[in-house]
């Protein structure tokens, strides 16, 4: 563990996982309760060609 980013990650994860007040990792809002889809993500710069997919 030498780079600054690695150090940050280690400390950050240690701190974040100490919290017990958060949500369990299998949290899943039921889709009946979903009323908003958030922000529309921008299109990717890459085209997808379905004809190239091997099936």
């Amino acid at each position: 563990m030498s780079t600054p980013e690695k150090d940050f990650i280690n400390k950050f994860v240690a701190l974040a996982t100490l919290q017990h007040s958060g949500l369990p990792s299998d949290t899943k809002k039921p889709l009946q309760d979903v009323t908003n889809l958030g922000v529309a993500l921008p299109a990717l710069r890459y085209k997808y060609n379905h004809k190239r997919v091997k099936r």
Partner: protein
Amino acid sequence: MSSNTKLTKTLARFQARIEVGDFYEAHQTLRTIANRYVRSKHYGDAIDLIVEGVQAFLSAKQGGSATDLIFYLLEVYDTAEVQVSDVSVARLVPLLANLDPEEPNLKDVVTGMNNWTIKFGPCKYGDPYLHSVIGSKLAVGGYVYEAERYFVLGTNDSVDKYVSLLWEWFLQAGDKKAVGEFFARPVFNYLFIGNIQNAYAVKDKFLKKFIDWSSVQCEKVDKNGFEMWYFEDYADLNFLQLLILTCQTKNADLFKNLKSHYSGSIDQYSSQLEYLGQEFFGMKIQKPVNFMQDIMSGLLGGK
């Protein structure tokens, strides 16, 4: 003659016409008789008849007639106020599954089906099980963004399909450095709808594919039950993994800390992060300040 025997007879006549290639006649006959059932409110019979008709047209590769009848079926669903249930959804699934993905009005068909589940079901965006089937069909037809949206709102097995689609797309892109742009999509999409479980599932599945495929420099971080991959050359992948953990904590200080550490490299995510700030950390979205308006409303005693 009971309505069932009549139905069987009609279907036999219909099948005979299909077999000799008399599609127009077959189509008209079926519609006329289905209409009669609808007018006499025998909706069950009308639905059975139309479904059989769609299947027959699909087997005969008559996509135009088949999709016309699917729209008709949805009209009957609407008139009869058929509620979303395992049975009523399951009836649509084989019709959709057998539809040619190159069918020109594929998108209208799936929209029609989904709109019915919105109107007569509990979910604002439609039925998750139907979404998983729709997503796969749209993906095969090349409608990636539409497929993505349905996968996000689908079932548990939509996650695998979504990951496969993104992975294939990433391979086609031929730009290894762009992996973060692909990985960011499902992470944000699942976090937006409060689905931490699927965000983690995507993290495991997508990153495993990337590691196996690329022989990239990485190292496992494992602390207090949280696991992630540290990538030496992909700060965006590190950031996105930490983001899931951070949303899970609902701790605004951690969120701010994470953002400031990665500031600069995450500019492209500013509106996404603003939304997550509001959803998970109760941070208000700041509106641009209009000084003139503030002064005026101050003078006028308003707020």
